[in-house]
């Protein structure tokens, strides 16, 4: 019994200590951001590996999610004779919810795990220590550009996901099921509010980008410098990111749409 309490206490203390380290890490990362104005090329490089290399995954996933939404939405709406509202259903589902959430989950799996593995391997091969001894601060040179790139990429990827998804919904709705294209686009345009829907979706994706990139970079930086340690850190990135995205999505949705 005492052993159980003791191990529970040890686990609790360890978790709090790690949480503290994570926040100090975030603070150091944020301190490194102003320096990037002088070296924006570093951010551009990372925008490519974090953002551009995730585009194909986002495009394909977005298209299929939109197509499925089109099919499922049509089957429900047709019972009420409201199939012309398919555009609204698809666009609101994507812009408010699925765009930011699914693209963030995909981003965590594709770019987040890659970031953790890269930083973890840099740590285990002493590249980060080597930089410190060359008087180059790895927080500024390595971590901050990746963090900013993640922050910029995530809302753009979510926007691409939503846009392609809406197009997928249109392909199925109009091309396959015969929904009137004018009704699809016009209803979508009327019912989708710029501030209420699009902007809230963008805010969600910025928050998810912030959290996923933070988790991914911290897990890599804090990884045990062995191949097993880096592997575990990569798994933790995907798992913790998924929890954070889904938990924060509920909180943000409650804040944004809870009083409607």
């Amino acid at each position, binding site marked *: 019994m005492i052993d159980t309490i003791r191990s529970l206490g040890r686990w609790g203390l360890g978790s709090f200590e790690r949480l503290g380290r994570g926040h100090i890490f975030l603070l150091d990362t944020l301190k490194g951001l102003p320096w990037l104005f002088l070296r924006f090329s570093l951010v551009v490089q990372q925008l490519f590996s974090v953002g551009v290399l995730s585009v194909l995954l986002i495009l394909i996933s977005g298209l299929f999610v939109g197509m499925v939404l089109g099919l499922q939405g049509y089957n429900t709406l047709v019972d009420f004779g409201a199939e012309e509202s398919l555009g609204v259903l698809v666009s609101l589902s994507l812009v408010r919810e699925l765009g930011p959430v699914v693209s963030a989950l995909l981003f965590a799996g594709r770019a987040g795990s890659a970031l953790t593995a890269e930083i973890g*391997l*840099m740590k285990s*091969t*002493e*590249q980060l*220590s*080597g*930089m*410190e*001894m*060359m*008087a*180059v*601060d790895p927080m500024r*040179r390595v971590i901050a550009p990746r963090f900013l790139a993640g922050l910029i990429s995530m809302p753009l990827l979510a926007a691409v996901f939503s846009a392609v998804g809406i197009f997928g919904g249109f392909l199925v709705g109009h091309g396959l099921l015969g929904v009137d294209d004018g009704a699809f686009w016009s209803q979508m345009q009327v019912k989708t509010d710029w501030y209420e829907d699009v902007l809230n979706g963008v805010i969600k994706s910025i928050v998810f980008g912030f959290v996923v990139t933070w988790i991914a970079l911290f897990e890599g930086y804090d990884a045990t410098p062995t191949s097993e340690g880096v592997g575990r850190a990569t798994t933790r990135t995907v798992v913790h990111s998924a929890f954070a995205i889904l938990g924060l999505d509920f909180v943000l949705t409650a804040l944004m749409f809870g009083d409607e």
Partner: protein
Amino acid sequence: MPLIKIRDLHFYRGNKAIFEGVNIDIHRGKITAIMGPSGTGKTTLLRLIGGQLRPDRGTIEVDGQNVHALSHSDLYELRKRMGMLFQSGALLTDLTVFDNVAFPLREHTKLPETMIRDLVLMKLQAVGLRNAHTLMPSELSGGMARRVALARAVTLDPMMIMYDEPFTGQDPISMGTLVNLIHRMNDAMSLTSVVVSHDVAETAEIADTIYLLSEGKVIEKGSPVQLKRSSSQWVQQFMQGLPDGPVPFHYPGKTLEEDLFNQKVSA
């Protein structure tokens, strides 16, 4: 006045003492070796000198500056004058050999690319790898990687250089090359070298002074000749690589007789 002055150094990992009252002087222009069995904290000592770790007690002064009392920016300024060669080489794996050596110059100077090119090729020439400048680190052997790392460590013309186990895992030719390079670089560039190693023959060949560390303390110091003549059994065991002596061959515990003849059935 020594370039590096370590006084009353105490450092703990958890409850385990790594250093307990260590005093070391590293003199300018000399090659000083820090030796001892695996796990005695030799690499930790280099990290303490470089300011990557903080001691629990005691001071480390480099060129008159207390390393652990410096601000973040002052510490980074000091590090520009300190080179370090890591055991793995610590080359940046996404950059070519050329870009690795050019890295400190591009980060800390505003020199034009043409001048950086000349400087990098000169440093690579000194380690015999000028013609390998287009290779990636994954295409280098262990010995070549360390030579590239050495070229990178001296790119900013530091006052001192720290070598972490430079000879470990090297074939005889690479080892000879590295021994020669460390000696030649130290003399040609008026460096101060700190070599952490447990390769007795190679280190004794180039070191002016050797500090032997064990169990958190300096066991002996002196020139290689003095240590080879030492009356200490521990020093003799280490310098001659004897399998048994003050450091026992058997892991401490029960004797063989106790284990064989006094065993209980349940065990």
